[in-house]
């Protein structure tokens, strides 16, 4: 998206622009790899400290997957867990003055396309190609074009649901910070006092509430769509 609110280009490699989205994704990836490396050293039979937290997290993800997709599809838990943890970190990046990678439609569309291909690949694998293709003629054959369009609409709505929420918060917050800075300058304050406290409740709503909720919804919808395609 060009215009005032798009991600900035940090540098270029051989003419390919590398935006904030990409560099911030790298930062999150590095932190997550570091975390999983540190957290999985020295596992003991009786968990202590960090191991408690990690076991709780992994256990919760497995339980959620089993509850939503059914016990037979527990194999999806590692992917769902990765997706959920990455999305939560990405959406909360705004709290640390990083532009959330999910505020770029390229990121969310990429993730939604993974879901899209999972839906159709596992649908075909489980049902067989013939039965899978026949599903497009339900309930009556004349619905074929509608069924195809509604399948294509799934990744669009999935990606823009996340993107719209995060970029919406980003735009509102950046306008608020700009407005507060302007207000401070007008009164003649040299210290950014207004920016210190006033945005906090809005950060709670847009970054923490919307960010965590949308990560959860994205993962849940992925699970529901994939398991529905397989049944």
């Amino acid at each position, binding site marked *: *998206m060009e215009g005032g609110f798009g991600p900035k280009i940090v540098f270029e490699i051989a003419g390919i622009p590398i935006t904030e989205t990409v560099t911030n994704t790298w930062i999150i990836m590095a932190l997550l790899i570091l975390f999983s490396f540190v957290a999985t050293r020295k596992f003991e039979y009786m968990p202590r400290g960090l191991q408690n937290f990690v076991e709780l997290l992994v256990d919760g993800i497995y339980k959620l997957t089993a509850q939503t997709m059914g016990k037979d599809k527990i194999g999806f838990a590692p992917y769902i867990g990765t997706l959920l943890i990455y999305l939560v970190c990405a959406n909360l990046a705004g709290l640390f003055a990083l532009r959330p990678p999910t505020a770029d439609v390229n990121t969310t569309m990429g993730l939604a396309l993974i879901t899209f291909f999972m839906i159709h690949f596992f649908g075909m694998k489980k049902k067989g190609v013939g039965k899978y293709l026949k599903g497009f003629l339900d309930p009556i054959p004349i619905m074929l074009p509608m069924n195809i369009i509604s399948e294509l*609409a799934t990744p*669009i*709505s999935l990606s823009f*649901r996340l993107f719209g929420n995060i970029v919406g918060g980003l735009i509102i917050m950046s306008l608020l910070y700009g407005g507060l800075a302007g207000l401070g300058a007008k009164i003649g304050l040299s210290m950014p006092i207004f920016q210190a406290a006033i945005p906090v409740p809005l950060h709670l709503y847009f970054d923490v509430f919307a960010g965590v909720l949308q990560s959860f919804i994205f993962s849940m919808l992925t699970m529901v769509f994939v398991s529905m395609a397989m049944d």
Partner: protein
Amino acid sequence: MENTNFIVIFLNWLLSFDKKALILGASAIGAGFAMIAGIGPGIGQGYAAGKGAEATSTNPKGSKHSTMIMLLGAGIAETSGILSLVIALILLFGNPLIKQDGDGLIIAVSAIAAGIAMIAGIGPGIGQGYAAGKGCEAASMNPDGSRPSTLVMLLGSAVAQTSGIFSLVIALILMYANPLVTGHQSTIIVAASTLGAGIAMIAGIGPGIGQGYAAGKGTEATGKRPKYQSNVIKTMILGQAVAQTTGIYALVISLVLMFANPLMKLL
């Protein structure tokens, strides 16, 4: 010779203004239109609040819990209002249309159409509010089943948002990448098509309310019998997918008007 056709007079009057002034004026109208979507979250959250009050009297001990669920649901129901606010703010503060080359009238109409498209937010707002109310009710009736029923509420509400998201997509296309702005033969048809692309999206009100109703009933059903959560989810999502159909028709028409307009060939 005086032209007596009202539309021609009106268009000539519009074209007598500076291009930039025309776009800015239209952006103001568009921002206003976008905010009409606020009707939805208003009604929906009011319903949720009412159900919250009812839940408190039914089960005073669990009132803290049902209030939390009400606030969670109301927070989701706010989404379409916020998306509209974002479109309005982009039109007011970061307007991408001013810098665009092309016919002033068409760019101006794009701003209005982007605003009109967002009116669809009324639907998801009402629907998600209904789901939030039902979630609140379910939590007070059967506190043990509140976890699965809240989950169904979240999922159902997320699906009910779909038509609002389609509107957002159309509004963003209209503002950032309207294919009609350059390379056209007839200004009036292109301008009207752009406006039509925005108006078509209003249909999203229907799926939003309908899917929200499904989400609410799914939440209620799960609250009563948490054991059947996954069956309820499947039926709910299937029904919601069918309810989405008219919204998808609107999206298709809107995209056809912008990217593959058959009316241009008739000239």
